[in-house]
C-alpha cells in the first residue's frame, strides 16, 4: 500500500510540468499559432524562477518570475511570428535555441545553489487518511494549480464567448477578421498565455521537482508537451489523460526495472511514448473519427487594412 502511494505521488509530480506546459500550448494552438518554442520558454522560466526564489527566499515570487520570464520569451515569438509574419515553425525553433542559451547565461550565477522546495499541503486529519490522504490533500501548490488551470481552460474554450472567438481565430482567421474580431491581438494574448504556462512549468522543475538549477534541466519536456497537445487532439480533457498517462508509465517502467522483471530497459523507456500515443489516438478515433486540428494552425495572417 505504501508503495502504491509512493508511486502515485511520483506520477503526479512527474506529470505536472507536462500538463502545465501543454495546457498553455493548447490555448496558443487553438488560436491558430504553432509555437515550437515551449522548451525554450520552459528553460528560461526555470532559470528565472530559480534565481528569483534563491535571491528572495520565496517560492511564490520565484514562480511569479518564471511566469513573467515565459511571457517575455513568448513576446519575442509574437513580435516575429505575429508582428512581422515570419514563419512560425522557424521562429519557434529559434526561440528554443535562444532559450537554452539564454538560460545558461542567466543561470551561470546560481548553478549549484540550493533552495528549500515548495512546501506540500498539510491539513490535519485529511492528509493523514491512509493512501488517499497524501495524494488528495498533500501535494504542492503547483499540482492543484495545474488541475485548476486545465479546468479553467476547458470552461473558457467551450463555455464562454471569448473562448468561442479564440477558437474561431484558430479555425478561420479570415472569417474572424471579416466579423471584426482583432485576430492578431487575440493571438497575441493566446501566445502570452502559452508563454506564462510554459514559464510556470519550467519554474516547477527547480522550485518543486529537483530543487536546484542546472542548464538543460528541462531535458526535452517542452517537446513532450507539444506532442501531447497534438495527440490530445487539442482537447483539455484528453490532455489530462495524456499527461497523467505519460507520467504514470514513466514512473511505472522505472519501478518495473527496479523489480527486475527482465524486459529490456530500452523498450521500457519508450513505453511512455508508445502508450500515450496509442491511447490518445484510439480516443480521438472513437469519438470524432479524425483529426480536429485548428484549421488555420501555423498559417500566417496579415490583415488587409
Amino acid at each position, binding site marked *: 500500500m*505504501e*508503495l502504491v502511494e*509512493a*508511486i502515485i505521488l*511520483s506520477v503526479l509530480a*512527474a506529470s505536472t*510540468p507536462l500538463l502545465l506546459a501543454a495546457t498553455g500550448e493548447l490555448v496558443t494552438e487553438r488560436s491558430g499559432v504553432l509555437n515550437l518554442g515551449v522548451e525554450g520558454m520552459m528553460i528560461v522560466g526555470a532559470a528565472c524562477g530559480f534565481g528569483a526564489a534563491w535571491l528572495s527566499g520565496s517560492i511564490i515570487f520565484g514562480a511569479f518570475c518564471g511566469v513573467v520570464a515565459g511571457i517575455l520569451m513568448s513576446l519575442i515569438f509574437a513580435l516575429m511570428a505575429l508582428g512581422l509574419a515570419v514563419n512560425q515553425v522557424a521562429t519557434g525553433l529559434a526561440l528554443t535555441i535562444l532559450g*537554452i542559451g539564454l538560460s*545558461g547565461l542567466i*543561470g*551561470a550565477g546560481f*548553478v*549549484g545553489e*540550493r533552495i528549500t522546495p515548495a512546501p506540500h499541503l498539510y491539513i490535519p486529519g485529511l492528509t493523514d487518511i491512509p493512501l488517499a490522504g497524501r495524494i488528495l490533500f498533500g501535494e504542492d501548490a503547483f499540482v492543484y494549480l495545474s488541475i485548476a488551470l486545465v479546468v479553467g481552460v476547458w470552461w473558457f474554450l467551450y463555455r464562454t464567448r471569448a473562448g468561442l472567438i479564440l477558437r474561431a481565430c484558430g479555425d478561420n482567421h479570415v472569417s474572424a477578421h471579416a466579423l471584426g474580431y482583432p485576430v492578431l491581438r487575440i493571438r497575441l494574448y493566446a501566445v502570452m498565455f502559452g508563454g506564462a504556462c510554459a514559464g510556470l512549468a519550467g519554474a516547477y*522543475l527547480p522550485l518543486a*521537482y*529537483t*530543487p*536546484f538549477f*542546472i*542548464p*538543460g*534541466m528541462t*531535458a*526535452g*519536456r517542452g517537446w513532450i508537451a507539444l506532442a501531447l497537445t497534438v495527440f490530445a487532439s487539442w482537447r483539455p480533457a484528453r490532455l489530462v489523460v495524456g499527461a497523467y498517462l505519460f507520467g504514470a508509465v*514513466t*514512473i511505472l517502467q*522505472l*519501478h518495473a*526495472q*527496479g*523489480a*527486475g522483471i*527482465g524486459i*529490456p*530497459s*530500452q523498450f*521500457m*523507456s519508450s513505453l511512455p511514448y508508445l502508450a500515450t500515443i496509442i491511447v490518445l489516438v484510439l480516443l480521438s478515433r472513437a469519438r470524432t473519427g479524425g483529426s480536429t486540428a485548428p484549421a488555420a494552425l501555423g498559417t500566417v495572417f496579415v490583415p488587409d487594412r
Partner: protein
Amino acid sequence: MKRALFAAAALLMAGCINGGAWAADKLKVGFIYLGPVGDLGWTYQHELARQALVKELGDKIETTFLENVPEGPDAERAIEQLVRAGNKLIFTTSFGYMDPTLKVAKKYPNVHFEHCSGYKRDKNMSTYSARWYQGRYIQGQIAAKMSKAGVLGYIGSFPIPEVVSGINATMLGAQTVNPNIKVKIIWVNSWFDPGKEADAAKALLDQGADMIMQHTDSPAAMQVAGERGKLAFGQDSEMIKFGPKAQLTSILDTWAPYYIERVKAELAGTWKSEDTWGGLDTKMFEMAPYTNMPDDVKKMAEDTQAAITAGKSHPFKCPVVAQDGKEVECKGGDHLQDGQILGMNFYVKGIDDKIPGK
C-alpha cells in the same frame, strides 16, 4: 565603389586581428565540451582541468573551448572550426566525438587531437580515459558496510560496457563485505535528465534499497537520498553540497595532470599518439573525502584505495564468476585483461537481473 572600399577595410581589420594572434606566438589549445560548463558534472570537470592548465602554462598557451556541442555531424564542424582558428592541439571530451574527431584528424595531419574515452586512434589522434571501475569497487565495499537493508540501488545511463563494468566492480567490492548483497538496477537511458534521475532514485528507495549509486551526471539522485535520510555516492564531481548528510564519497574526474602533461609534450615537440587509461595510481581520477561513515568503514575504504593504487589489489582479480555460474577466462594473469574490462557485456554472479537487450 563605396561597398568595395568597405569590404577592403573589413578584410584589413580581419587581417589585423589574426596578425595580432600570430604575433603572440603562443600554442593554441582547443576543447570541445558536450554539456554546458556549469553542468556540475562531466563537462564541469573538464573545464576545471582547462583552468588548471591555463594557470600552469598560461604564459605559453592560449586556450579556447566550445560548449554544448552535440555528438555527431555538428561536432565535426565545431572541431574543424577550432582547427581553422589555429589550434594545434584539440581535446574532444566525449565518447560520441570519436568518429568526427577521426575524420577531422585525417584531414589535418599537422594538428594533434586527444579524444576522451574512445577506442579509435590515428598518427595524430590519441585517446585517454580513466579506470573508474577501481573507484566503484571501493564504493561497493562502503555500500555493503553501510547498507542496513542489504539492497543497493543503482541508476544506470546506457547499458554500455563502461557502465556494466562499473556495476560489476561495485558488486565484486560489495560481495567481499556481504556475500548476499543485492542490487536493484534502473536504466534511465539518458546521461542527463535531473527529473528522471530523481524519479529513478525515488523508485529505488521506495522498493527497499537504502543506498543510491549512479552512473548519470546530475546531482538529483544525491538530493533525493539526502531528503529521505538515505546514503548515496556522487558521480564525476563533488556533490556533497546536494547531500551534506548523504554523500559517502564520489568519483572525481581529475583531468588536469593529464592535460598539463600532454600540452607540455606538445610544447617540447615530443607529442606522440598514445592510448592512456589511467587509474588511481596516475591520479586520472580521485575519490572525494570519505564522509558520513564510521571510522572503521573509512579505514577499510582507505586501505582498499591504497592497495589498488599500489597495484596490490585488482577489482577484477581472478576468478571472476559470471551470472551463469561459469568462470570468466582469465586473460590478464591474475586479473581480467584490459580488453575484457573495456568490452564487458556480462553481469557477475550475485546480480539478479539481465543486461537490457541481451
